[in-house]
């Protein structure tokens, strides 16, 4: 029941965000906002596997790109509205996530992380050599200028991504409070003890990789329409892998709030830096902040606040 209340509240917040953005009436707000929203979805998705079960995925970009490229494929083969493409992107990346999980989840720690990185390289190589979706040349997606019932197309994309944010946050919060969430936490803490307590660890890890992968793919599916020209190096970009790890780490990995805070903070900082300094300084900011947080606040902003509250209680 409380999940339903949360869903309603977040829909209300999303509506306020959308109308506030329309009040500003500047396409750039939607353009920059879309990127931040996209990072909220990616960070939340990463956190379901990386934060809840403790398996660090370095291949987020691959899942994102699978979503984006499934859109490119269907745009060419069988045009469909974007919401359906988002679902397809989710299914494709979910299946990739399940497959990756099945092949690699017997690995632990650094070995799992390396395997996910390898997966990204393999998938990128496949896409580069697949001529139908543009190969290394890239693919153009010509999007309409306007959409009848809403106005500029970028507002439509913004609205779609806002919906995905609501969906992914609701899923993340629901998992946290459900039996699944307890199971994930035991995997993060101690897999041997989890098995001895009756937790089917392999099965739960597969559930986590599938949900996490599917959400990343959904975040990637509208991307070709946003960017207009998709090439492998932008879809598989380092910034997606790095950001989707850094944002939950900086925000805090144990709850759904962490990735949200981290993504808003880092995402806005990066947008501001792009405009005021240069777009190249982005990853530098992420890197410096990540190092600072790992040293000063290993449990992220949420961890800092919780620690502060515990101290006040005493």
């Amino acid at each position, binding site marked *: 029941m409380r999940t339903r209340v949360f869903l309603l509240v977040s829909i209300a917040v999303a509506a306020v965000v959308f109308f506030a953005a329309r009040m500003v009436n500047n396409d750039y707000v939607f353009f920059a906002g879309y990127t931040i929203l996209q990072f909220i979805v990616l960070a939340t998705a990463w956190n379901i596997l990386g934060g809840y079960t403790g398996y660090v995925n370095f291949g987020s970009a691959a899942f994102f790109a699978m979503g984006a490229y499934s859109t490119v494929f269907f745009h060419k083969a069988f045009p469909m509205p974007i919401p359906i493409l988002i679902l397809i992107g989710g299914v494709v990346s979910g299946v990739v996530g399940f497959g990756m999980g099945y092949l690699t989840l017997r690995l632990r720690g650094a070995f799992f992380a390396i395997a996910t990185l390898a997966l990204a390289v393999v998938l990128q190589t496949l896409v580069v050599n697949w001529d139908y979706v543009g190969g290394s040349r890239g693919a153009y997606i010509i999007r309409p200028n306007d959409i009848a019932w809403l106005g500029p197309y970028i507002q439509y994309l913004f609205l779609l991504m806002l919906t995905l944010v609501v969906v992914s946050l609701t899923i993340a919060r629901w998992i946290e409070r459900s*039996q699944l969430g*307890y*199971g994930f*936490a*035991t995997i*993060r*803490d*101690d897999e*041997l*003890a*989890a*098995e*001895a*307590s*009756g*937790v*089917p*660890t*392999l099965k739960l890890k597969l559930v986590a990789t599938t949900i996490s992968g599917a959400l990343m793919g959904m975040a990637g599916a509208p991307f070709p329409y946003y960017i207009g020209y998709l090439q492998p190096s932008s879809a598989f970009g380092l910034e997606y892998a790095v950001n989707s790890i850094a944002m939950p780490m900086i925000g805090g990995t*144990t709850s759904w709030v962490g990735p949200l805070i981290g993504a808003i903070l880092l995402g806005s900082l990066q947008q501001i830096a792009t405009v005021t300094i240069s777009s190249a300084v982005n990853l530098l900011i992420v890197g410096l902040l990540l190092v600072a947080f790992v040293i000063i606040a290993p449990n992220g902003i949420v961890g800092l606040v919780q620690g502060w509250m515990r101290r006040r209680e005493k």
Partner: protein
Amino acid sequence: MAGALLEVAGLSKRFGGFVALDGIDLAVTQGERVGLIGPNGSGKSTFVNCICGTLTNETGTVRFDGEIVNGLLTHERTRRGMARSFQLPRPFATLTVADNLRVPLLYTVNARPGSALSAAALDERCAELLQLVALTDKATKLPRDLTQVEMRKLELARAMAADPKLLIADESMAGLSQSEVDDIVNLLIRLNERGITIILIEHIMRAVMKFSQRLVVLVSGKKIADGPPAEVIRDPEVERAYLGQ
């Protein structure tokens, strides 16, 4: 032995060229309290790990509750009623003490057909277990706030939460003071009185002698004695293993 709860036959386990367990036979009947002793490195923990499915034995069968469980994963064996505590406590560090007990309730008791608990019943069971091991006032604390003996009790309570038929307590008293050892032994005897079969692995002889109805001795992966405790510790072979010739 007919009607045994746990029946291990010809169990062997090797790590590369090292034979850790060599053809172990052991039958434990319903309701029994068995002590398992042996010098360090004699294969006690390996034996437990093979019974529970953490390790895979090369030869031999493990039959539990009339069913061969070879090849089943640990969590499947736990659901069938086999629970264990670990030699070094392995609590779920980011969950509260109460939630540590909630996990086996959710994943073991609720997973058995026809025994799903309501939310209220779950809370009640948690409270019961906490009371059993006297940790009620620590329910909302994290495991890192517990003392060593409380940590051992949490470990036992978590094994108990799975509502097992057989409990294997792997050195749950190492490093505790005398009164704390008595505390845990009394707890185990209380559990046994509720009908739970218990295998206790221990080095502290005082606890083993007080607890066990039957004593089994492992030395270098072989079972060298099995019988009433008072007789077993007088066995010359057992004396030789512990004290040297």
